[in-house]
């Protein structure tokens, strides 16, 4: 009987075969998630439109009133690396929404009844959303160049700045996966995520230098993960002291992953 071959494959899944099995399942789930993103492009549109509005708003409306003398570059050059981080920070909320939708629709129950790698559900979601984030970031960069953003270092450093932002984004995807799985309801996931991410984005160096903020806020605004990553991306685009910011950003990324990935796995186990 053909069904028996499946049983044998499953039994033999140890060692390298198991790694291949996990990769295969992750790829299948990733494809499924990407297909969903393309067929129902509302998350794409939502995550692109919003940063574009911020680019236009800060470039043309508020930008004139903001003087960034400390950095020695035009405001748009200061702004864009910050916008990259803001884009991925707000965009990662949709991961929580997607995860909660899968819990609510019963998709997670289907996955659980199948002899697949458990880790593939979370891995497939975060990998698909990282791909989405990459596309969005490229589009936002193009918008930046169109409104006058210029790289003051070199192309390699600019690519490095996108990579450091994407690395940070991947950690955030796990944060919001955990949120979505814990809340199990798309609306709640969205409602709960915004108040967490908004202060991190606004009380930060994303739009204005922290030196203009009151002293009680300055400490938080300098060293919180969004600011640190924005500073790292900015240094890579505009020059200046770079390594320290990059290392701090990577430290935050690793720290967040170490805490939130197990948390997401734990909520996944309890989600159904």
């Amino acid at each position: 009987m053909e069904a028996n071959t499946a049983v044998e494959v499953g039994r033999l899944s140890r060692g390298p075969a198991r790694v291949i099995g996990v990769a295969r399942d992750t790829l299948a789930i990733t494809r499924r998630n990407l297909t969903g993103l393309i067929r129902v492009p509302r998350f794409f549109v939502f995550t692109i439109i919003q940063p574009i509005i911020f680019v236009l708003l800060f470039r043309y409306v508020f930008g004139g009133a903001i003087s960034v003398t400390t950095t020695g570059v035009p405001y748009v050059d200061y702004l864009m690396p910050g916008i990259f981080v803001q884009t991925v920070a707000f965009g990662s909320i949709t991961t929580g929404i997607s995860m909660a939708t899968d819990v609510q629709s019963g998709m997670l129950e289907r996955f659980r009844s199948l002899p697949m790698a458990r880790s593939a559900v979370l891995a497939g979601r975060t990998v698909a959303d990282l791909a989405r984030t990459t596309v969005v970031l490229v589009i936002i960069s193009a918008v930046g160049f169109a409104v006058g953003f210029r790289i003051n270092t070199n192309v390699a450093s600019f690519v490095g700045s996108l990579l450091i932002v994407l690395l940070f984004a991947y950690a955030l995807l796990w944060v919001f996966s955990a949120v979505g799985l814990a809340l199990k309801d798309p609306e709640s996931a969205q409602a709960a995520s915004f108040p967490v991410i908004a202060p991190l984005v606004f009380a930060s160096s994303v739009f204005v230098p922290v030196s203009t903020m009151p002293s009680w806020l300055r400490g938080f605004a300098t060293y919180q993960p969004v600011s640190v990553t924005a500073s790292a991306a900015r240094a890579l685009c505009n020059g200046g002291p770079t390594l320290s910011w990059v290392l701090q950003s990577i430290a935050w990324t690793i720290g967040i992953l170490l805490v939130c990935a197990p948390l997401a796995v734990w909520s996944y186990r309890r989600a159904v």
Partner: protein
Amino acid sequence: MVEGLRKNYGEVVALQGVDFEVPVGTIFGLLGPNGAGKTTTVRILSTIIRADGGHAEVMGHDVSADPVGARFQIGLAGQSASVDANLTGLENLVLVGMLAQIPKRLARSRANELLERFFLSDAAGRPLRTYSGGMRRRLDVAAALIARPPVLFLDEPTTGLDIQSRTELWEVIRELVRDGSTVLLTTQYLEEADRLAGRIAVIDKGTVVANDTTTALKARLGSTTIELEMGSEEEAIRSDALVGHVCTLANEVEGKTVRMGCVQGPQALIETLRVLGENGLEPVNLEVREPTLDEVFLALTGEHPLDGGSGPASKDGG
């Protein structure tokens, strides 16, 4: 197969010792109202959730000790699991097939066979969002079959379907068993359990209140009611005397109406009308009623089932 299964949700007891065994190659009906524990049972058996107590095996694989082994034996359709609304019919089947660890090419060819068998070939390339309820349920059952598992769990597969889609799905389920599958079917409809299952366990408030062959269960429950309304009271009394022997379960005459409880509904009806016709009697009105789930519960437990899906296993309600 299932022994003393228990499950609590916090303080709420969803299952309090459920026992039954499903013989290989048969359809077993798990019949009960919303919140009885049907879906909870299926969710435990399909390894989606863990039982708090008891023991359950699927083809020799303990669902808590060897969930992966059990997963290779089962296919799941109905309320407990879903299909992806954004994927096409074909994509859904291939996805489930691949995650059931069958090679992609095989998944693809089986998916096409199943789409054809379930009359979904024309819709194979359309996202499920565009499917009707009946089409979606058929695809759901197809997804359960893609890995050709020996055991199938169909959790209220026809709830919310119109009569035509329901009948079509019944035919599909019968075919599966002809091909050698073992099916555990949960349903709120006595008629459905009656039409499909060889054995039925009636479940209420997390316990099995009856477990018997369908025929034996129906005999115990009085089964079909035939109601004859005659032209006059005298005619009713004469009719009762003539046809009373056809059905012997709780017969009564009330005014112009003769009411009879029959084990074999259709045969009894033919016999009744034949005898009446030979004696020149013609009912003014004729009614044949199958017992409702409500009546079954009344007969088995002496009380009406709880209303709605607000019971312990409220996930039964979807």
